[in-house]
């Protein structure tokens, strides 16, 4: 133990002696980890946001499709579907998109009537009167108003409507509530000039979860112009989307990893004349090959662990403090680009372990192999070279 501590002390002083080389190696190494870590953190967080939000999402959403596009669905369809055995309830939902050209933000306007999403309010209450609304945090950040202030929206007839903000949503399900404006259903219908016999879609609840697929098929069979979407399908779409995007990003990031491996290999195999001489001197003074390898092991471990931790911290700050400005456009996609939302910190330790294994392992090997080659040569030969 005492011997190991002395060798570790020598290692640290040796790293400090070569501080420029050590720091530049740590910088490159940490940067690579930060890039890879950012992709992993962001993907994981987005997937977690999506799946977390969808836990409370409707079991089946029924849309109407006309000419291959999403169209408004007649409320009468709700009555037809509600008669299918196994259906617990059918609720028409009224919602739409709103683009604010001034701040270039996409908002989702949703009406609450009989149906209320499980929306948790950070502050205030849901709207009751026709001139009231509740908004997501993203809108607060973009427009600046808060509870008690007014939100002005312009309808398709270019008439401005003023809504009093009665509540702000919590950030827990940011991905869904971030750009949300909730209005009373009648107010929303009036705003979008929507017929009272139509809804945007229908939300279907079932008694038995195992019947979801069968019921979706039955709805499609009886109402052929509809498109029933199950919760699993939405979840799957999100996962595929983020996995595909993160895969693309990781493919790019792997190039960084390979570049790093080349650098590590070059650094390690290209053991400098000074380092060779140092090994020769240590051996000549009575250090065993194992002692020299222990130094190199500690050196490699100190550099790789420090870099890994710095890289992971940098990735964390990049993703969860600054919302991943370098990666967001690539991973989130256009629809949720703006207003920006804060990512909730989620870490997949298995992925981090794999990342550590794939970077620390090769680096240690690259450090130890050439040192071993030098340390097993006669000290006289090493010093003579």
């Amino acid at each position, binding site marked *: 133990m*005492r*011997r190991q*501590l*002395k*060798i570790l*002390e*020598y290692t640290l*002083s040796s790293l400090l*002696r*070569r501080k420029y080389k050590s720091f530049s190696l740590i910088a490159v190494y940490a940067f690579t980890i930060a890039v890879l870590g950012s992709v992993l953190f962001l993907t994981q967080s987005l997937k977690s946001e999506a799946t977390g939000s969808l836990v409370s999402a409707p079991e089946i959403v029924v849309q109407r499709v006309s000419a291959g596009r999403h169209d408004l669905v007649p409320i009468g369809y709700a009555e037809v579907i509600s008669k299918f055995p196994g259906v617990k309830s059918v609720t028409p939902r009224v919602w739409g998109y709103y683009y604010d050209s001034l701040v270039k933000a996409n908002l989702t306007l949703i009406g609450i009537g009989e149906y209320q999403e499980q929306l948790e309010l950070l502050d205030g209450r849901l709207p009751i009167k026709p001139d009231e609304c509740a908004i997501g945090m993203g809108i607060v950040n973009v427009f600046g108003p808060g509870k008690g202030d007014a939100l002005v929206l312009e309808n398709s007839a270019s008439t401005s409507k003023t809504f009093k903000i009665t509540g702000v949503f919590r950030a827990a399900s940011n991905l869904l509530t971030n750009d949300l404006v909730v209005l009373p259903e009648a107010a929303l219908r009036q705003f979008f000039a929507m017929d009272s016999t139509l809804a945007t879609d229908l939300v279907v609840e079932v008694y038995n979860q195992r019947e979801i697929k069968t019921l979706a098929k039955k709805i499609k069979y009886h109402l052929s112009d509809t498109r029933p979407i199950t919760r699993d399908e939405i979840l799957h779409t999100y996962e595929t989307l983020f996995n595909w995007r993160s895969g693309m990003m990781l493919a790019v990031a792997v190039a960084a990893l390979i570049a790093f491996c080349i650098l590590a290999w070059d650094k390690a195999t290209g053991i400098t004349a000074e380092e060779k*001489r*140092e090994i*020769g*001197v*240590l*051996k*000549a*003074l*009575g*250090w*065993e*090959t*194992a*002692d020299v390898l222990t130094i190199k092991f500690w050196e490699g471990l100190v550099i790789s662990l420090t870099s890994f931790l710095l890289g992971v911290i940098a990735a964390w700050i990049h993703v969860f403090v600054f919302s991943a400005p370098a990666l967001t456009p690539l991973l989130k996609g256009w629809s949720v680009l703006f207003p920006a939302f804060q990512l909730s910190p989620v870490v997949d330790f298995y992925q981090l372990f794999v990342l550590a294994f794939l970077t620390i392992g090769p680096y240690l090997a690259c450090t130890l192999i050439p040192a071993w080659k030098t340390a*097993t040569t*006669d*000290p*006289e*030969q090493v*010093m003579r070279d």
Partner: protein
Amino acid sequence: MAMSPLLRIEQLSKVYNRYRPDEMMALKDLSFQISSGDVVALTGPSGSGKTTMLSLLGCLSRPTTGSIHFKERNISRLPERFLAHIRRESFGFVFQHYNLLRDCSVLENVMLPLYPSDQPWREIKQAAVQLLERFDLAGMQRKKVKLLSGGEQQRVAIARALIADPDVVIADEPTAHLDRDLSEDLLDILAGLNDVGKTIIIATHDPLIYNAGLIKRRINLRHGQLDEESAP
């Protein structure tokens, strides 16, 4: 009963780059003995094999053929880890170019041989500080070696060679980079070491050393072979 020699060399040969076009025989069939307390000068012209001989005696390399017996034990075929132990415990080496770690402090350089030992840190440091005081380097503990003069560097190298209290001190051309005054100081130091029972082996072609009263035996090499052995 005759005292057994400290070092016994038998038919020692060393070939570099064996079986290659640039194969070179550095030493050939050398046999001699060194007793405890001896002060031996290995002399001979450049390329005669002095440094190779010191490397073999100090376990820095292995002979191609023949054997070296240290305290009657054949050390020429010992596994590397035992050789490392012998190098650390029994031989103190002062290299021609000192071979100090130039970016390390004076204190670190002197303590270096005992880092892998089980001796406590405080004891090693204490011994190093005492040696530095003995060689007038007390105020330079924290100074980096690269900032020292040639004479100071050599004294650091000697202090490092003595930190493990070895039986044998081996010095390769120790006066090669020193002026006359510093060379005489060095002879005084070596004489002092011999007085406390250290065996000293010096490779040199400096007459100041091999003509000094300190030298008890002189072994002259020529073309890797024993040319003559004499006791001045």
